[in-house]
């Protein structure tokens, strides 16, 4: 019954997507309102049927209906409800269904956001979005059908992958990452819509920027949660290993971040138009590549699925999308020449497609964009290199962490440096002297950070340089907020608090960007210190035996116990930790045994503080009580700051997304700013 109903819903979504695809094209070409209404309703119906199919599969997993193929793969009688629900995305076919469900959500969000305001673009955007939806509905209804009925109905199932049951982060990490991946189809559809309509103006910039910022924020959060999960679950005490599937999520993040910045140049100065369009398209295409990397079985990764029939079909779709994007750009980009000049309507016609120079914000964003592009290419090359060598020389070559670290460090530092230079420069020209006066205090703050780092013993040259760059960028971003506040206090005699609130109120989008930058600085700070000054040792301990000095701590093995739960057994080894004679606490890393798994799963225990993490991971322990253990102890400074960076970036995005009061309502605040001062305080 569930099989039939599920298949029906998926086929229904295929029908609605096809209707929307053709309806959108007709509505756009003939300016036909009736066709537009059909398209809009078809899009909503697609969303409803795809989301319903997902809910139905969740129901099947909850009631353990083993007549449904996907439930026999990941369901189990012993699985509690809070693991049964995330099982939806724990295996290949379910994850594709989940992709479709999220796409359904984004389709509805797009229709709602575009409303009746963007008639030139909306039909084309839905046409493209429905084209993508057709592919996923075909996939879910065909070779990746999770609703297929089972001939030999088993009495029980194996349950989801034990690694996915081991930590609550696995409940939130995949959906967040999917929200990032799938959402990139919306800005892609809007980029295609501009090209198909042959029109790009200020009305296009507003939704495209917002609809890029939403999935970008989810992608940022998803990547960070994935790193946190890896840290908390896998037992090696690290968040990022440059694994192909990890890299797959990083590629679109890099290009998406570049897009968010180049879109500002397009909006303010009317420049970098084609580059911005390319970035918008590339970001989506890289999410497809990422999905392919995880699901084709072609890449060797701990996160990827084994080879299946989905891979070749997905590759055909990537091929069509790539060729479509290139041809569309080649055939239609010149049509935008006329309308692109009015993109900067938001600033009242400040378009300046000539002039500029090196000391301008737009040039700094260009440099930063180039760094992002080189970074993307470098990571992509390292990820694809094993495939390239195998195709050309028939030998297997793997590219490891050292290659990526070697490139990521200078490129990342360059980007952080430009994150400071950009806000220190105004849109348009500035004098070298004014720029020097502006960055001199930032250099002093950078030097203070570098000195602090050196004084605390974090004295490797790259660490000191990183801390300098962080201090420099931090001050530049802070000063971009402080300067207009000081100007208001000086010119209008407002109190600092009142001036700060007013600046915040009328520059929320810009401040959102600054807050996101602070989040990035948190992450860089943590990475520089936790990776560079990590202490790791393995110890074999009998009951009562101690490690006397591990990073200043005394660690005593207090014995082990066997804990039995419905879906697993766990051996918990307890360690008492003291520092300078004072008790820090008792920590119990585990070795977990799942009934369907040949090997046990390591479950570390982490003691996190703002300045350091103490990490316990069992390497060997038997089920016998109080047996000898082999434990890995890791001490990492400032690791927690990495996890804090994600909510800070998300807060910045939320501020940037929050609707701003129109300029009229603000009482012409623009006109009241002292002459010669641009928004942001840049002269």
């Amino acid at each position, binding site marked *: 019954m569930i099989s039939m109903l599920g298949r029906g819903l998926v086929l229904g979504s295929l029908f609605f997507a096809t209707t929307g695809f053709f309806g959108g094209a007709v509505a756009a070409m003939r300016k036909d309102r009736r066709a537009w209404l059909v398209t809009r309703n078809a899009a909503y119906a697609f969303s409803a049927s795809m989301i319903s199919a997902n809910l139905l599969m969740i129901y099947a997993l909850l009631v353990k209906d083993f007549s449904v193929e996907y439930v026999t793969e990941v369901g189990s009688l012993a699985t509690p409800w809070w693991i049964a629900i995330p099982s939806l995305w724990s295996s290949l076919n379910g994850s594709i269904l989940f992709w479709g469900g999220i796409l359904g959500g984004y389709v509805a969000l797009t229709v709602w956001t575009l409303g009746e305001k963007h008639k030139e673009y909306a039909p084309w955007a839905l046409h493209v979005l429905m084209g993508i939806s057709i592919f996923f509905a075909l996939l879910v209804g065909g070779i990746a059908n999770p609703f297929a009925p089972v*001939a030999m109905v088993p009495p029980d199932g194996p349950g989801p992958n034990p690694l996915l049951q081991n930590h609550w982060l696995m409940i939130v990490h995949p959906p967040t990452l999917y929200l990032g991946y799938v959402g990139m189809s919306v800005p892609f559809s809007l980029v295609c819509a501009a090209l198909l309509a042959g029109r790009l103006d200020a009305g296009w910039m507003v939704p495209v920027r917002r609809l890029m910022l939403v999935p970008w924020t989810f992608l940022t959060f998803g990547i960070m949660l994935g790193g946190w999960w890896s840290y908390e679950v896998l037992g090696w005490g690290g968040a990022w290993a440059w694994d192909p599937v990890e890299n797959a999520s990083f590629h679109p993040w890099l290009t998406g971040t570049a897009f968010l910045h180049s879109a500002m140049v397009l909006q303010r100065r009317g420049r970098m138009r084609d580059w911005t369009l390319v970035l918008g398209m590339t970001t989506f295409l890289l999410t497809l590549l990422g999905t392919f990397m995880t699901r084709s079985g072609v890449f060797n990764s701990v996160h990827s699925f084994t*080879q299946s029939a989905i891979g070749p079909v997905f590759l055909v779709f990537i091929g069509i999308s790539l060729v479509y*994007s290139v041809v569309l750009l080649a055939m239609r980009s010149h049509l935008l020449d006329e309308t692109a000049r009015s993109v900067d309507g938001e600033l009242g016609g400040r378009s300046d497609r000539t002039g500029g120079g090196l000391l301008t914000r737009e040039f700094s964003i260009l440099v930063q964009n180039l760094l992002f592009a080189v970074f993307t290419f470098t990571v992509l090359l390292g990820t694809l290199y094993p495939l390239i060598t195998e195709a050309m020389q028939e030998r297997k070559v793997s590219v490891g962490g050292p290659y990526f670290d070697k490139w990521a460090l200078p490129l990342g530092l360059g980007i952080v440096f430009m994150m400071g230079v950009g806000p220190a420069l105004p849109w348009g020209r500035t004098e070298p002297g004014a720029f020097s006066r502006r960055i001199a205090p930032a250099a002093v703050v950078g030097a203070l950070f570098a000195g602090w780092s050196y004084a605390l013993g974090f004295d490797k040259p790259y660490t000191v340089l990183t801390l300098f760059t962080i201090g420099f960028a931090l001050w530049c971003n802070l000063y971009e907020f402080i300067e207009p506040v000081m100007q208001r206090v000086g010119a209008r005699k407002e109190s600092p608090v009142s001036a700060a609130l007013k600046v915040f109120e009328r520059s929320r989008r810009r401040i959102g960007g600054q807050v996101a930058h602070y989040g990035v600085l948190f992450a860089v700070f943590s990475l520089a210190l936790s990776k560079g000054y990590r202490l790791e040792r393995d110890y074999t301990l009998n009951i009562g035996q101690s490690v006397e000095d591990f990073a200043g701590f005394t660690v005593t093995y207090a014995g082990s116990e066997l804990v039995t739960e419905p879906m697993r057994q766990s051996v918990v080894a307890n360690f008492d930790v003291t520092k300078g004679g004072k008790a820090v606490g008792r920590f119990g890393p585990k070795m977990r045994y799942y009934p369907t798994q040949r090997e046990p799963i390591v479950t570390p225990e982490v003691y996190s503080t703002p300045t350091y993490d103490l990490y316990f991971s069992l390497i060997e322990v038997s089920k016998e009580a109080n047996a000898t253990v082999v434990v890995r102890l890791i001490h990492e400074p400032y690791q927690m700051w990495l996890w804090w960076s994600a909510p800070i970036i998300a807060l910045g995005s939320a501020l940037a997304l929050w609707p701003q009061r129109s300029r009229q309502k603000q009482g012409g605040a623009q006109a009241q700013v002292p002459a010669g001062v641009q928004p942001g305080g840049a002269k």
Partner: protein
Amino acid sequence: MTRRGAVNVRYLLAGLVVVLPLLYFLATGFGNDPHAVPDVRTGTPAPRFDLVDLDGKHWSMEELKGKPVVLNFWSTWCGPCKYEHPLLLQAAKAYPDVVFLGVIYSDEPEAVRRYLAQKGQAYPHLVDPTGAIAIDFGVTGVPESFFIDKQGTIVHKEAQALYPQTLQPLLARIRQ
């Protein structure tokens, strides 16, 4: 550089120079599954054995030639073996033309008898007291199942629990 309706050849060429090699390299990845751990026994004749089942009956590879065989190494202390047991019972009943044989791996025959009395038995279980047959087949742990065709050739080794989705296609291959 371009007229209305014209194609920007530079964009087209630049795009295709990136796109086409990328697609080529991704396509060549198929058929080289990096997850697949090759098993040296696959494609070779199944090692000979002569073992006794729990009821004392002799079974040898020689006598099984001409019949498709599923040889399942298992034990009562192994969790995944317990999961796949009902599925193997079902399959043995559904495919009477296939010979299903369990091989007891590092376990006591008495413990196996008790387990089978409780959970059901549909095919013989062979006693391999010294583990010699497990060594001949290259067994590294349990469960491991060998799918042997009518010519006595190992077609596939499954080094994990069997699922309905994996079992049925493998049975189809050895029944051909």
